[in-house]
């Protein structure tokens, strides 16, 4: 807590204003430049996604052996990942609203996951992107399942949160789909099940449609080979879940990504909002395809600064963002994919243990020396 507060106070209000203006200028410059290139890009991704879905489902359906089946599953997984990450997530942010294309409109787009589009727009576009990493307001922080900072009181069940994390990853679309249910608030009684009825109805409708598609209709079309289609679809959905969860955890839960308190963000200026977005996000580096398959969430910092600018522009914008960050001495969190992910795992492990000073802590440290490595870094 102490460390975070200090970080937010590093810039004077007027510095923050100037910093905000520079970000606004960058934003306006790119918005003014949007055009055919961006339209062609997103359409080419949609085409690629559709062909890989058709190819994938076709291969699974008519596969003769494990090889062609595996290729089909791979193609279907790629298609699902592209649709969720580079098309769905980005379109629903309003990144392509300017095109006036009814198929690419943020408010009507519906994606290939059990998460209902309206629910996503509310919990992600609004809540998560407005209150990023504000503990108590950004429910994406740990998804109310994981303890990823000391602000959440430690309980013995956190000892096994690695298991929770693995399960959440594998069934990520269900976690995301049920996010709006706010189970933690249901448990402490601050919301009632009655209030959640409309959401549950929408969720049930979307989930039924998704389940019917992948686990009833397509398998049934294969007749006696229904099982291999069902299995193929399940593996593709699972692969997409794991991938999406991994990418998203790299975005906000790396070792150095910061959290904030509600008080310090009250009445924040635009500059401060930008500032918080940078401190709370982390990028990772990699090849062009890694970026595309992550929906350019590899540029999480840029995405949080400019959530409604077409994501494939982030690589070009990142130089300028880094230059501005350097000017104002703001840390810009990036590193290779593998390394960043390792710090996520470390964070999950570290906070599964009681905080320092907790009576149990000494016991653990006595038992295993390597826990010492998981101690929080001292503030720099």
């Amino acid at each position, binding site marked *: 807590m102490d460390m975070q507060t200090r970080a937010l106070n590093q810039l004077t209000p007027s510095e923050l204003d100037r910093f905000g203006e520079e970000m606004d200028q960058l934003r306006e410059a790119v918005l003014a430049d949007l055009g055919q290139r961006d339209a062609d890009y997103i359409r080419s991704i949609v085409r690629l996604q559709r062909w890989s879905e058709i190819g994938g489902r076709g291969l699974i359906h008519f596969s003769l052996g494990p090889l062609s089946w595996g290729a089909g599953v791979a193609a279907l997984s790629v298609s699902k990942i592209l649709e969720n990450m580079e098309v769905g997530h980005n379109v629903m942010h309003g990144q392509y609203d300017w095109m*006036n294309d009814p198929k690419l409109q943020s408010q009507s787009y519906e994606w290939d996951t059990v998460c209902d589009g309206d629910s996503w727009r509310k919990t992600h576009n609004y809540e998560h992107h407005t209150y990023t990493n504000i503990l108590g307001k950004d429910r994406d922080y740990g998804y109310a399942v994981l303890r990823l900072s000391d602000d959440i009181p430690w309980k013995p069940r956190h000892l096994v949160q690695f298991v929770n994390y693995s399960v959440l990853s594998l069934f990520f679309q269900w976690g995301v789909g049920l996010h709006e249910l706010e189970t933690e608030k249901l448990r402490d009684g601050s919301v009632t099940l009655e209030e959640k009825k409309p959401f549950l109805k929408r969720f049930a409708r979307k989930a039924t449609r998704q389940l019917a598609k992948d686990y009833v209709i397509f398998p049934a079309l294969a007749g006696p080979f229904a099982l291999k289609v069902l299995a193929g679809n399940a593996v593709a959905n699972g692969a997409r879940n794991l991938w999406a969860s991994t990418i998203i955890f790299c975005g906000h839960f790396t070792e150095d990504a910061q959290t904030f308190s509600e008080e310090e963000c009250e009445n924040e200026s635009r500059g401060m909002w930008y500032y918080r977005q940078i401190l709370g996000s982390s990028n990772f580096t990699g090849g062009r395809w890694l970026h595309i398959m992550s929906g350019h969430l590899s540029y999480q910092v840029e995405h949080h600064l400019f*959530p409604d600018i077409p994501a494939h522009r982030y690589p070009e914008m990142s130089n300028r963002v880094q230059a501005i960050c350097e000017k104002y001495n703001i840390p810009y969190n990036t590193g290779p994919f593998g390394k960043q992910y390792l710090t996520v795992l470390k964070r999950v492990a570290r906070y599964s243990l009681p905080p320092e000073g907790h009576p149990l802590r000494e016991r653990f440290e006595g038992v295993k020396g390597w826990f010492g490595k998981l101690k929080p870094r001292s503030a720099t």
Partner: protein
Amino acid sequence: MQTQSNSTTYWNNAGPVQDTLDFILTSIDPLMSRQRLMARVINCIQETDDTLTYTLQVCSRWQGFKPGQFVTISAEINGITYKRNYSISSSPELLRNKRQITLTIRAQRGGKVSPNIGQWLKVDDTLEISAAMGDFICLEAEKQLYTEAQRAYSPVALIAAGSGITPIKAMLESFCENRPDHDICLIVHAANPAQLIFANDLKRFTQSLPNLKLSVHFSDKEGFVTQNQLLKDCPDLKDRVLYICGPAPFMAKINDFAEAAGVPDFRRHQEAFSSPVAPRKSAGPVTVTFTKTGKTVTSANAVSLLELAERSGLKPKFGCRNGICHECTCQRTQGSLVNALTGNPIPDEQTQVQSCISIPTSDVTITNW
């Protein structure tokens, strides 16, 4: 008919199956789309300096038109889709025989679409078109007033200025085909001979329509239309059914003259025919109209669309109220807005706007609230 409307509903209910099948079909040939009506440009000729006539091959599902109607085309320029209405200038016969229609498009000064249309719409391109629309249809409304026999002998006056001649031409083509001896008074206005659209076709019509009386006027030489001139061209104006098409001030004038000459209101038909007028920037209070709910609200200060909607009793969806999440997006078809965060105007062609940060600077129309 029943099955057809069922299948149309099926395809328009965008779902994964429909979308995928439509994607495959359009990959083979865009004209095979089941979700959209498509057309392909097969010819383009220069009509005058600033006017082009496109011949379009329309898809098999396109239902046909009545002479005088228009279609909405979706034009993509620099990634942005614009919708524009253009009258069909060809005969129903061309559609029947070859499934083709022609659109005659004149460059509108200051327009976004028409000035460079030759550059972005070329032979072999495909584009989305709507079904034919509009009730500026020759002797159609008269079906309720007259018997078929009376209708066949109702004399008409067709009065066009500038590119307003396009729907009139379709009507004339139809007369050539169906009732060549109909009594027609045709009055055409253009700036000068070089700007006269369909000069050759007009000549052809005078030959194939024996009871056609044609008058052509050039405003560069003769000035604006006068009542005297109109009544000289057409002394029995009050006995005719009028079809008027051209710029708004021209139509208003003709309307006044015709009313003074005793042509009853129900016999004066006109087509509002111009590119969207640049929105009026007003200094005083502005009115915002929400067409779906029929509510209106006036605002004198810099208040966002979202707040105005709430003031008028609507409860639109919103989230951050700060320009981040797009939850508050609404559809603006008319009027100008500025972005409250930057103070910059929001481009006119952008129809999806974030209401929480959009401040109207002219009268604005929102269609989905």
